């Protein structure tokens, strides 16, 4: 396909916007933990950007978007991104944009997905264990699942398509990653919350957010970046992108209201944490559906997501698992809701490449496909994450000591404290040589 500069312009901008989501997530999560853990919480996101981007360059892009013929994973090997470079400036690919722009855009999805998981294991995770987990998890879970869902293969002159992922080729509709990103991360989050166990004092000691303005900064940046995520997934500047964009906005807005209404009736007062959480729930739920439903459908999905997730975040107290920042309640639940909703509200009047859901006379076919995708991504991610987490737990260990957790993970893992507004009496020494004993104690 010949390259179109307008489409390229939008995908470049969208890529930058999606990158910003991961720092945004770091702030959203960071503000929610206690002041003694804010740095570690943010570090998990930042280090994930580092790891995944480098792995993507080496083999990740190939594993996700190469062609093994199986539909289960892409190609194994080191050359894929290199060949993408060589095909510049015009790619021979599916979209009217440089293949490197496509690759960069998809990289940002690979970055944020594992970062999402970190919210489930706040305040207690060894950084080195997290680094190892992320490295393996993107390799054996994310890259393959991205291939399943996002790789639409190569269309040949005779109309045949080869190299598509097995879910994509079955006509599963997931515009921007309800399955590969949110259900995937949510399932892994649940697995890790179970593997790591509860924080010291969970459901007994207050663990209130230490900096709600920081949470809202994160939510604001997430919302902004998500337009790149969803509307950028059109991989061009066109009507579909515009549809995805406006649906993203109205669903998120409705979800914000939905969450606040539940709070008003359940707790007596709507909260700013609820507004931020509702917005994120709406963003999650509309992600798969944003270019397959009409705006009124987006409002419905958003409103339902806000309300349902507001109720779902309490489940961890009932079932007794410490999904610290509600990755399950928001990303897993919201992701499932959005994927399934397409089965009802999908309509070809807004997108001829989509399909009609139950309410548009499409019968149960689409619903079945969507359910298949939900179940298979959830099961695959949960099982592998649980096994991987357990192995790490029993080898190098996944948690810091209880003492370090109580006095604060920032100090224990990073020798830093988030804030210093008052007196920090002490002395100074520069450290130009190698690690001293004191540093290890």
């Amino acid at each position: 396909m010949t390259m179109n500069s307008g489409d390229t312009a939008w995908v470049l901008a969208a890529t930058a916007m999606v990158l910003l989501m991961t720092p945004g997530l770091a702030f959203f999560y960071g503000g929610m933990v206690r002041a003694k853990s804010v740095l570690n919480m943010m570090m998990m996101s930042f280090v994930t950007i580092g790891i995944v981007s480098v792995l993507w360059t080496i083999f990740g892009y190939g594993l996700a978007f190469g062609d093994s013929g199986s539909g289960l994973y892409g190609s194994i090997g080191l050359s894929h991104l290199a060949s993408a470079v060589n095909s510049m400036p015009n790619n021979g690919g599916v979209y009217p944009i440089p293949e490197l722009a496509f690759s960069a855009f998809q990289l940002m999805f690979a970055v944020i997905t594992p970062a999402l998981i970190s919210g489930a294991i706040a305040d207690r995770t060894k950084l080195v264990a997290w680094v190892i987990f992320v490295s393996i998890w993107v390799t054996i879970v994310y890259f393959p699942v991205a291939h399943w869902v996002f790789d639409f293969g190569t269309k040949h002159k005779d109309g045949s398509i080869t190299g598509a992922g097995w879910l994509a080729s079955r006509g599963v509709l997931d515009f921007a990653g309800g399955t590969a990103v949110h259900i995937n991360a949510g399932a892994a989050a649940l697995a890790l919350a179970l593997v790591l166990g509860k924080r010291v004092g969970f459901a007994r000691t207050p663990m209130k957010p230490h900096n709600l303005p920081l949470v809202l900064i994160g939510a604001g940046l997430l919302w902004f970046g998500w337009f790149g995520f969803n509307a950028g997934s059109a991989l061009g500047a066109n009507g579909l992108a515009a549809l995805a964009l406006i649906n993203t906005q109205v669903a998120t807005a409705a979800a914000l209201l939905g969450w606040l209404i539940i709070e008003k009736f359940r707790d007596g007062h709507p909260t700013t944490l609820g507004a931020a959480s509702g917005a994120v729930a709406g963003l999650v739920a509309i992600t798969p559906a944003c270019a397959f439903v009409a705006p009124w459908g987006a409002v419905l999905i958003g409103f339902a997501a806000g309300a349902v997730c507001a109720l779902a975040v309490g489940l961890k107290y009932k079932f007794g698992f410490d999904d610290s920042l509600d990755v399950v309640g928001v990303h897993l639940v919201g992701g499932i809701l959005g994927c399934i909703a397409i089965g009802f509200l999908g309509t070809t009047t807004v997108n001829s490449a989509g399909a009609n859901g139950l309410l548009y006379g499409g019968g149960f076919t689409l619903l079945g496909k969507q359910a298949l995708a939900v179940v298979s991504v959830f099961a695959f991610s949960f099982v592998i994450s649980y096994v991987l987490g357990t192995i790490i737990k029993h080898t190098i260990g996944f948690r810091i000591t209880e003492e370090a957790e109580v006095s604060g993970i920032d100090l224990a893992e990073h020798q830093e404290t988030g804030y210093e507004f008052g007196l920090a009496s002490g002395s100074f020494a520069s450290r130009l040589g190698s690690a001293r004993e004191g540093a290890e104690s």
Partner: protein
Amino acid sequence: MKLITAIIKPFRLEDVREALVALGVPGMTVSEASGYGRQRGHTEVYRGAEYTIDLVPKVRIEIVVEDADADSVIDAIVATARTNSIGDGKVWSSSIDQVIRVRTGERGHDAL
């Protein structure tokens, strides 16, 4: 010499300070505190998790005065800090051995 310690509601601080200055008290030291007592704390709710915060923000004022001035200072604080609602606070006084002004080394009366 007496040390008078007063725990009061934060928004009364400015009025108390003015009253003490009017009384000729030359200085005082103020710090933040939290109180527990008859006044109930409040409830906060985050994602459906309810936190009962028992501590209420207070301000602590410490004033060193000569023995003769103690009663009038206490009375002034009590009168100005009072809002007649639970949690208005406490004032207590104790004897101190001596007081020194760091800048000059002056002691006792001259140090105030």
